Each structure stands twice: as C-alpha cells, then as structure tokens.
C-alpha cells in the first residue's frame, strides 16, 4: 500500500468523523463531489449529514463554524483554495481568534487551506498566507511537510481547543507518498530534524522542506553536512529546536515560499538572533519567494519561489561567509 499527502488528509478527516460525533465538514463542493481536490472523497456517503456543501460564502462559512464550535461541535471548514480565505478573513481573525480571549469559551474550529504554488495556477490559486494568520493572536497555524504529518497533525488540529489554520500544500497532494499512516507522531508545536548535519541549519516548513532536503543532498556531494529543521507548526514556533540546531551548526538559513516582507523567515531570524546570538558564526540569511504575486507561467513560477537550486546556492554563500 502507498498513501499520498492528499489521501492522508482524507483519511484523517474520515478518522475524525468516525471517532468524534462532534466533527462535521463544511465547504464548497465537499459533499457528494468530494471537494475540488477530492480531500473529502466519499466522506459524505460514509457520514451522512456530516459533510455539507456550502454556498460560495466564505465569511458565513467561518461564522457558522464558530457558532457550531460554541455549541460544542468541531467543524472542519474547507476553503477551496487558501487564496479565497481572504473573503472569510474577518470571521477567522476577529470572530474565531478572539472568542476564547473574550469569553473563556474556546473555539475548536479547523480551517483547511489548500495553499502554495503549483505550476500554472497563477496569482489567485497559489498563495501562502501562513504569516498573515500567524500574526494574529488566537490562532494555531500548522504547516505539515510530510504524509505522516498531514495525517497526524490534522487529527491533532481537530482535537485542539483553539482555531487551527491548517495549511496543506497543494504541490504535495499527489506526488508525496508514504508507505503507511503513522500511529505515533511528534506533538504539535515541536519541530522536527528532517536531516542531521553540522555545517549549517536550514529552517523551513511545508513544501520547502523538500527543496531544502534536495539542496542538502546536493551539498552533501560537495562535502557539506546540512541540517534541515522542519518547523511543522509556525505558530507556535519551536524556537528551542531551532536554536539547538543553530548551536550545533553555527549557521542559519531560513527558507519560505511566502512573500519576503515579514513572515516566518523574519520571525525565525529575529528569535534566533535575540536568544541565540552567540551561537552564530555568520549572519543568518533568508530566502523567500519574490515580492510579486505568484506568476502563472511555469518559467516564471519556477523563478518566483525558492527551489533546491536557489536554496543550495544560498547555503553555499552562507557556508563561505
């Protein structure tokens, strides 16, 4: 057997629906159709009345989820693409994210965001919005990079009492495969050493973990041992694991697929320099996407985002400093 990242997401939802009567799924085309990406395939049939098509009303979709969460349910909202969450934005950041703080009533909703660039998808079906959500207090932002994490972290997300923004990378949906679903997992909030090394630490998350691993493999042929830290969760962000890695390597490169101003890479650098300054042997560096919308054409797209190549090049530069 082999299971994809996307199937893992489907399985996690099936699992959650099966084990927890409080769970339901609401989103455009998630019912009989099984969702634009088939992440809810067959679930409407297997769990009648608990997987429901919504109107094209992202604001009301999230609002309904908050109301249901108040009543003790555990809604999973599927945004058809992360990019469309901008029209459900207010309910996420002002209604869901503030509820517990205002009222001491928790708001266990999971908002699934199929995100990130894929070739030919263009500026409105490719966005990486994790930093936008992480900036707001009251949200948990998860960014699984592996099939195992997609599964276990989505299950965890549904169990978490707070609103979770679950960023699932569309590029990983079909081609990332694993032999089986995990029975154990690192807790949410812990980063993972995806590859050990002692010369330089690359901190990254989601699809970029795979670019970083490829870069590390390439650099290994040149004699460098690159450590790759997969953040898994960008809020909370596991600064301890990052700093421990930098303590071993002395060099930090942060890689993200999102836009360059602010975001995960800036936050990681700011934390490491504040708390682990003495550990650094060279200036910490960042590599992000370019500061434009995500282009449609594959040639442009490939140049817009970091790739194993540009990651390796940035790492080489930093190793030479």
């Amino acid at each position, binding site marked *: 057997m082999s299971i994809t990242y996307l199937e893992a997401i489907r399985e996690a939802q099936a699992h959650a629906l099966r084990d927890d009567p409080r769970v*339901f799924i609401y989103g455009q085309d998630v019912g009989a159709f099984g969702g634009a990406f088939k992440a809810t395939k067959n679930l409407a049939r297997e769990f009648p*009345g*608990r997987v429901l098509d*919504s*109107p094209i*009303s*992202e*604001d*009301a*979709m*999230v*609002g*309904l*989820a*908050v*109301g*249901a*969460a*108040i*009543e*003790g*349910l555990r*809604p999973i909202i599927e945004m058809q693409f992360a990019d469309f969450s901008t*029209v459900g934005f*207010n*309910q996420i950041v*002002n*209604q869901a*994210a*503030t*509820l*517990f*703080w*205002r*009222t*001491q*009533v*928790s708001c266990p909703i999971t908002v699934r965001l199929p995100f990130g660039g894929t070739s030919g998808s263009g500026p409105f079906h490719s966005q990486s919005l994790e930093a936008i959500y992480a900036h707001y*207090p*009251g*949200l*948990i932002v998860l960014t699984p990079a592996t099939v195992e994490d997609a599964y276990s972290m989505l299950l965890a997300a549904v169990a*978490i*009492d*707070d609103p979770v923004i679950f960023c699932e990378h569309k590029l990983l949906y079909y081609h990332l495969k694993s032999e089986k679903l995990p029975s154990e997992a690192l*807790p*949410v*909030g812990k980063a993972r050493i995806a590859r050990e090394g002692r010369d330089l630490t690359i901190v990254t998350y989601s699809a970029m973990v795979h670019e970083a691993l490829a870069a590390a493999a390439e650099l290994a042929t040149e004699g460098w041992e690159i450590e790759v830290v997969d953040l898994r969760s960008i*809020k*909370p*962000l596991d*600064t301890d694991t990052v700093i421990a890695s930098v303590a071993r390597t002395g060099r930090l490169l942060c890689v993200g697929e999102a836009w360059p101003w602010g975001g995960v890479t800036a*936050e990681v650098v700011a*934390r490491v320099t*504040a*708390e682990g300054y003495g550990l650094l042997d060279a200036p910490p560096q960042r590599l992000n996407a370019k500061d434009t919308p995500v282009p449609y054409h594959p040639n442009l797209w490939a140049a817009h985002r970091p790739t194993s190549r540009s990651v390796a090049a940035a790492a080489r530069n930093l190793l030479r400093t």
Partner: protein
Amino acid sequence: MLHTVSGPGSAGHVGSTAAAPLVAYRIMLRARLLDDKFAALSRAGKIHGGVFLGRGQEALSVAVGVSLDKSDVFAPLIRDAAGRLAFGEPLIDAVRTYLGSALGPMRGRDGNVHRGYPREGLLPMISHLGAMVSVVNGVLFARRMKGITGCVGVACLGEGATSTGAFHEALNQAAVEKLPLILVVANNQFAYSTPNSRQFACASLADKAVGYGVESHSVDGTDFAGCLETLSSAVNRARTGHGPQLVVANLLRLCGHGEHDDAHYIPTEIKNSPLGRDCLKVAEKFLLEHNYVGADMFIGWRNEAIREIEAAVAQVLREAAPDPFAEEWTAISSKYLMEGHAS
C-alpha cells in the same frame, strides 16, 4: 412567501399571558433608565470609550427579548439593552462591562455593548457589522445536528448593516439551511450620520426577503403593541419550521450614534414625524388605554428601577479593576501550545 405588515393600533393583547405587555414595559423602562445612567456616567467621565444607547428602540428590542426562551439564541447589537434584559442578562453585567469591572463577563477585556455568554446563548458581538448573523446560524445548525429541536435564534442589526456582505451571506446561508433564524433590522433611518438614501435604494428593506426565499414582517418600531405582536409571530413562524424570518422595523434613534454625537444631522421634520415618537410613551399610552394599569404605577416602577440601577452602579464602582499582572496574556486556551518566545 409570507409577508405581514403591522402598524400603529393593529395589535391588541399579545404574549402568552395577559401580563406580557406589562412585563415588557417594565423592562423597557429599566433599559431606558439604565441607558440614561450610562449617559450620565459618560458625561461624568466615568466610562472609558464609547457609550451606545437604545433610546427610541426599546419597544422593538424588548419585543425580541420577551419573544425568546432562555434556551434560544440571541445576538443583540449596540441598541439592545432592553432585549438583553428581557432575555435574562443580569442588569449588573451591563454596568460591569461599561465600568470595566474585573467581575464582569468580559473582565475588562472588552467593554460597553460587547458582552455576553456564548454558552448561554447570549452571543457577545464583535464590532464588525453583520458578522454575528452567521454565528447564530452556526449555533442553530449545531443544535439541529445534535437533535435539539424547537429553539430559534435572533440576530439584531441596524439598516446600515444590511449593506454588509456578511449580512447577505448569512441570511442566504440560513435560507439554504432553513434555519430558525429571525433577523431583526431596526431601520432607524441613519447609520451613524448616513441617511437611508445613501445606504440602500429599495422601497422597503422587507423587500429583500423574497430574494432570499424567506418570510418577512414589517412593523412600526415605535408601536409597542405592534412590535410585541410582530416579533411574537415571527419567532413563532421560525419555531414552527417556517425557516428564516426577516423583520424590519421603522423607527428613529432618539439619541446620537454614541454619546459623543449630538445627532445634529437628523432633520427636525423626521424627529417630528411619527417615526420620532418615543416608544416608551407609546407603550404607556397603550397600557393605560387598554386598562392594563393605572398611571400611578409608572412612577413607582420608575423609582424601583432607578434604585436597582443606582445600587448596581454603587456596587460596581467599588469593584476591582482588572489587574494586568494577574492577566495570563494569552489568546489561546490550549496552554501547551502557548508561545514562550515571542516578545
């Protein structure tokens, strides 16, 4: 598509008991006096931030509250002191929230009209207009999913809020899901300073109902009995499975948008029109004319309410303010997921 219109004088006795109008009136009176007190405290500099009153809108608001059961859901807006009291919100909660007492439901984290108890069905508003409607939908949706039947939910809005996308998405959502939502629009002719002519172009906001496939009700919001009757009937329709109900009441707020605002932009003609009637006076007249009560009772009730309010204020003024050192300074409930490092 059901459409009812209720105007002045169209209603007789309403409610489950003959005493219902009296109950409603006494709550209106308490709400009015409570609002007056907040205005006074505001002038005295005792309240931080905005003060938003429901003066002139108490008949509509109280009608919402008395039409609901404790097990229903209610998302009041900024002018619903009367509806809140009728729904069962303790008067002292309003005082504590306005004065920022640490003992209030919002513990000083939020103020004035932003209060409630979600689990008890009294939803605390966020400021973004229209945003509460879909939350009411969610509560009703969840209850249905849990097999709880017979309850309804009310979301209150001003006419200005009907221009928000959130209103539209939520009303449509309720219609698609056939939820027992009653959406109550207080058309007080102005959104802050903006007159209806700059807010919408339909003849009546109740005309929106057919475009959503929901039932509608129009009422003169200054008419005490009409409001009681209309809300009771709208709530009843929702409760008995007829889907969402849109209630539109025409009235005027007899105050500024907030206490900082003198409402100079409201033309005298409108103030002097039937819209400008004080629903509290209308209610008193109604009660007298229908022999519910003698005029002598009003003053007693008023004094009683004032005593209650003054006692609450005196008590709250002695209560502790929130202590920043005792705050946890986290917005999430999962302690194990708290960020230890950001600063």
